[in-house]
């Protein structure tokens, strides 16, 4: 089927990720630029003057190349420099280019861009504290979630700026975006008070070992009777577990009762039993398992080499808006 030109067809976007001074900025810029290419823009990425750090970032492929670069830098054009409709980069890189629309990535905002790591962004924004194992210190989310989310924000800002069609500068703060994702933490404090916020954080959601891996124990108060009946242990009818608040206060005791039931069953068995009762429990799947996932296969989400396509269907079809000229280039060229 012949695809229509993409929404950004005819637009030229300058990707300054190779010129970003810090890795989080480079990742955010590259994510926004990758999406611009996926939506049909001609995206030009000038080479780094020294080492291109994105081209070396793990995970590495057996051929030594960076899987990250292959994913994130896909769809760039080898087009010439010249006039651009928009440029995405950090403040210093953008200062040297002319484009009517500039999307500027920083830590806190223009002129407030200290040295920062991805872990630091998660720590400052409260995202790190929110990902708390049952034991030990908080852990960062897998992958590059803080800069990639900022990249999504930058993509939306880019789209809006292109549609507006007038000169403008949009600032995307890596910190603000992470805080925006974690809004419920701060909102709970500001709207409900510190004590209520502390209660609100105790959802009791976590993973539990199954016979062949783990499942996510996720449920709302309304799901409790179904969960209790599914596990079928009389101790779960005690008053210590009667309300969401009580369950939060007795989380370890609750886990002690739940664990054997989960550990004796496979992820598929647990998921089937839970879903039959409309409890939102699901398996923890590895990226390798996702390659054979039936839902992803049915929706043609992954290419044969495992690369995710644009996470969007339009009128029932997954769009292929990337410029034809850019499809043949190796992603990490």
């Amino acid at each position, binding site marked *: 089927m012949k695809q229509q030109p993409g*929404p950004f067809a005819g637009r030229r976007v300058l990707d300054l990720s190779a010129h970003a001074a810090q890795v989080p900025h480079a990742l955010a810029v590259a994510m926004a630029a990758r999406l611009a290419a996926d939506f049909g823009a001609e995206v030009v990425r000038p080479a780094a003057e020294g080492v291109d750090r994105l081209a070396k970032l793990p*995970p*590495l*492929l057996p*051929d030594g190349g960076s899987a990250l670069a*292959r994913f*994130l830098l896909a769809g760039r054009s080898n087009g010439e420099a010249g006039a651009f409709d928009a440029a995405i980069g950090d403040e210093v890189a953008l200062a040297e280019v002319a484009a009517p629309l500039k999307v500027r990535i920083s830590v*806190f*905002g223009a002129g407030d861009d200290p*040295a*920062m*790591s991805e*872990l630091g962004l998660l*720590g400052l*924004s*409260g995202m790190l504290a*929110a990902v708390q*194992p049952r034991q030990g*210190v908080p852990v960062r*989310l*897998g*992958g590059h*979630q803080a800069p*990639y989310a900022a990249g999504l924000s930058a993509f*939306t800002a*880019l789209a*809006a700026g292109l549609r507006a069609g007038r000169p403008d500068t*949009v600032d995307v*703060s890596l910190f603000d975006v992470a805080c925006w*994702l*974690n809004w*419920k*933490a701060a909102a709970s404090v500001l*709207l*409900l008070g510190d004590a209520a916020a502390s209660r*609100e*954080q105790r*959802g*009791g*959601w*976590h*993973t539990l070992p199954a016979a062949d891996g783990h499942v*996510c124990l*996720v449920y*709302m108060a309304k799901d409790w009777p179904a969960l209790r009946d599914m596990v079928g242990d009389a101790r779960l009818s005690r008053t210590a577990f009667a309300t969401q608040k009580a369950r939060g206060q007795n989380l370890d005791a609750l886990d002690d009762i739940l664990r054997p039931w989960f550990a004796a069953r496979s992820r598929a068995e647990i998921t089937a039993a839970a879903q039959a009762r409309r*409890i939102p429990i699901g398996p*923890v*799947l590895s*990226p390798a398992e996702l390659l054979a996932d*039936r*839902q992803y296969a049915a*929706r043609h989400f992954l290419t044969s*080499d*495992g*690369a*995710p396509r*644009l*996470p969007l*269907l339009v*009128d029932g079809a997954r769009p292929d808006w990337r410029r034809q000229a850019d499809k043949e280039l190796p992603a990490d060229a």
Partner: protein
Amino acid sequence: MPDPKPLAGIRVVDLGWLTAGAASSTLLHDLGAAVVKIEGPNALDPFRDWVGAEAATDWWNHSPFYNFTNRGKRSVCLDLKDPRGAAVLLRILEGADVLVENFRRGILAGFGLAPALLRQRFPRLIIVSISSQGEDGPDRDLVSFGSTLEGTSGLAALTGEAAGEPVITGRNINYPDQVVCLFAAGAVVAALMQRDATGDGAHLDLSQRELTSFLLGEELLAAAAGAPSARQGNRDATDPAQQVAVREDGLRAEWAGGSVPVRDAAALAHAADFTAGTAILRDPQGVPAKGLPFRFASNPPRIATGTNPLGCDNRAVLAEAGLSEAEISGLEQAGIIATRPRRGPAA
């Protein structure tokens, strides 16, 4: 005088619930669209009694999280389960550019409002369906919350210590619900650009699970090449100094170039850099409300209006849709439009 916003003149009908749907519409509002939020007297946005909804006389208008998320929207309370209510929605959609929904799959079709039918009837309409798994496929009807999708997308498998259990964000973040808003808003703007060029609307089908996996794209590529990554806690292969450590002043995130405190919710809410940022802003009454994840120089971020009470725009919106005073009064008397729910708050 700020410039017109990018979506000035765009009209959005918001059937979105909680974060994934409702906050996507809020971003469209921030970009300049006029948003009408439509809930039913028997189908309130669950945020209305998520937390802090005291069983006072009009608890539904005092939910902190609902009001935080749905600022700036007009509110219509319309019973879509009644065919007369669904017919009113069709009248409203005649003047709309975008419809946002994140109902369980099949619910909209059950109202006689299947996206395919709406596409036929309103060829210029952009319908945005945000769901866990997408519109089709064998698992489309699986029940999930955002954190369930952290498990099924690959994120949980890569979050946590190598020797420990996978970790999910839980009720306070529900990560896939948050990130989908950032992408959905951009996808809508792109679809509007496409419509500007072609005149054609579209049905956008966004799977939160797919987006969450997309944000791990390099890990999928590595796994397919036979080089899958393992969970690695806070370690970073490119920075051996990176860790979270307990120090005298509490937990700190440390890396080769510096360190910062690991803030909890209270520390975040009271931090100067957070207050100076845009993640949470204040409405004209000074009430904290959802902020913006970007700042246009042409339109510095601000919140112009607070949250409207349930159904307070019933009459105005229906009149704009062409209904007569008599028709609107008839709908009121029949309870098809309302200004209060038919139930009390969830226990």
